[in-house]
């Protein structure tokens, strides 16, 4: 207890310097908390994707289509419980800036492979039973004021109808909800594949991707290989991967989050190491005489070592805790922004534990040089410098 008092006393005796150091540490851990927390939050969403779910796309890339016939051939593979398919429609509402993610799907099966969707059975039946129907995430429907039974025209960025028009009329069949753990912002408008396929001018009988549910996670690996082998000599070759891996790959197309976390955090921590490390060396050098006096009074080398290491640890822990606290605040504010497209951002225990680990490491490393110096300090030489 008295050591804690001594440590805090020494830490805050140069208030401005200490506050600056704490702020620097806080910023480093704010950056770390935000990036690592973001990464972990996404990871948490991926981890909810069942391990027995696969995605098959064109091997060129996922924007290239696959023949519709593949769907039934996939369904025939042993161990495939169900398969569904979807197309990217590329929609907007009224004006091009109102982009509306829209999938043309097999209405009977799609919702069984979309775990994030929670839909009222009545709405589902109305959607399945009406060829020109569309359903939308609740947030989107509220934003545009769509009511059940409304005629809603969506424009496609890609597909004209046979008559050349890019405007596609739909009947609004209701809303669905997105389960909280998948985040507020996701979700697409769903329309019927058949309705879309028959009316489009080009691309007939192509699907964008196929989602497969295997009977078990063990079967999934084998099925993935079998699917790709099945079409290895066809015009359109396939690449089948687990849905989780596909999602991750999709997100990491532009940036690899994990490597950004590593890069930026390393830079931040290295800076802290230099700034705090240097400040600690200077602070303890200024106190050489005091250390010698403490030793004269009977403070042992180990105790002094501990006091100094405690000081750098306290500094980094205070700054780091503030940084994580600020991260949590930002995450909770972000989650209240309506329609944000991110998964629910949270500081998970693993992120906090890792951050605290880095704090302890940084605290020890920054304090080590002066602490060892003070431990070894010879009283006679230090006091001799009168």
């Amino acid at each position, binding site marked *: 207890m*008295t*050591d804690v008092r001594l440590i805090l*006393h020494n830490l805050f005796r140069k208030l401005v310097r200490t506050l600056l150091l704490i702020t620097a540490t806080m910023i480093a851990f704010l950056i770390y908390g935000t990036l690592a927390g973001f990464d972990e939050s996404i990871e948490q969403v991926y981890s909810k994707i069942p391990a027995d779910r696969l995605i098959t796309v064109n091997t060129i890339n996922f924007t290239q289509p696959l023949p519709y016939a593949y769907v039934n051939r996939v369904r025939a593979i042993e161990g495939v419980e169900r398969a569904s398919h979807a197309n990217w429609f590329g929609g907007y509402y009224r004006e091009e800036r109102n982009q509306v993610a829209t999938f043309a799907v097999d209405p009977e099966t799609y919702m069984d492979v979309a775990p994030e969707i929670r839909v009222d059975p009545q709405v589902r039946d109305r959607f399945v039973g009406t060829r020109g129907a569309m359903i939308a995430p609740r947030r989107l429907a509220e934003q545009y004021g769509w009511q059940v039974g409304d005629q809603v025209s969506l424009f496609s960025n890609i597909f004209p109808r046979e008559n050349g028009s890019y405007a596609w009329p739909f009947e609004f069949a209701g809303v669905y909800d997105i389960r909280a753990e998948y985040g507020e912002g996701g979700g697409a408008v769903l329309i019927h594949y058949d309705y879309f396929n028959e009316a489009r001018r080009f691309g007939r009988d192509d699907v964008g991707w196929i989602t497969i549910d295997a009977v078990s996670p063990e079967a999934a690996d084998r099925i993935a290989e079998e699917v790709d082998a099945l079409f290895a000599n066809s015009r359109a070759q396939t690449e089948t991967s687990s849905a989780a891996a596909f999602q991750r790959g999709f997100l990491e197309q532009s940036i690899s989050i994990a490597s950004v976390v590593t890069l930026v955090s390393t830079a931040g921590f290295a800076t802290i190491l230099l700034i705090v490390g240097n400040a600690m060396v200077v602070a303890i050098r200024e106190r050489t005489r005091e250390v010698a006096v403490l030793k004269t*009074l*009977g*403070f*042992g080398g180990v105790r002094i070592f501990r006091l100094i290491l405690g000081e750098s640890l306290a500094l980094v822990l205070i700054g780091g805790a503030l940084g994580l606290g600020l991260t949590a605040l930002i995450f909770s504010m972000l989650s209240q922004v309506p329609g944000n497209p991110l998964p629910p951002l949270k500081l998970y225990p693993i992120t906090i534990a890792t951050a605290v680990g880095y704090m302890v490491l940084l605290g020890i490393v920054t304090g080590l040089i002066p602490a060892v110096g003070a431990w070894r300090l010879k*009283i006679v030489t230090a*006091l001799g410098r*009168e």
Partner: protein
Amino acid sequence: MTDPIMRLEGVCKGYRRGGEEIQIFDRLTIDIETGAFISIMGPSGSGKTTLLNLLGGLDKPDDGRIVFDGQEIQGWGESRLAKWRAANVGFIFQFYNLMPSMSAARNVELPLLLTNYSAKERRRRVATALEVVGLSDRARHRPRELSGGQQQRVGIARAIVADPRLLLADEPTGDLDRQSADEILSILSLLNRDLNKTVVMVTHDPQAASRARQELHLDKGRFTDAQVAAQ
């Protein structure tokens, strides 16, 4: 006479400076009787501080024995010596060496942080020590808010708070005016007389030296006084 609280026996001490060996003490022997108040005078560089450092276990002899209360301490390790100092030796410095960021009371409390006393007991002992040096009303002052004489009194309070038997003072009045110096010397006399502390005080000032009960003179690493030379 009672047993000596400390005894140096055949102590040799030298320093190597730039390849050249300078011998400060060559087989120095001296007894410090329990309850003594000794002043040590001598020219600069005669080895006064080195002697105090050896007595206080801050420095080690090259040869010879240093005996405290029947125990040889010259071979002890750093941490054992630190514990021994905390319990048995109080240091008083010429330039006070107080912690500038701490109040007088916190400075005085420092040696008690090495004990198992409760916070309450520590407060009580700090109050007593400050009372002995007549600074009860300055407990919350920082060193820079105190005069030199007052700072030295805080230094003395710190030296006695853990109730050590031996006080080592290196030119405790060297930086003070006459009046403040006299106050400090009166306190040291009181500690020696009434609280039975053994005091070894190095000083340049003959007037200060005369306040001790025994005056010794050190020159070129040797005591020139007959009674020590006889030992």
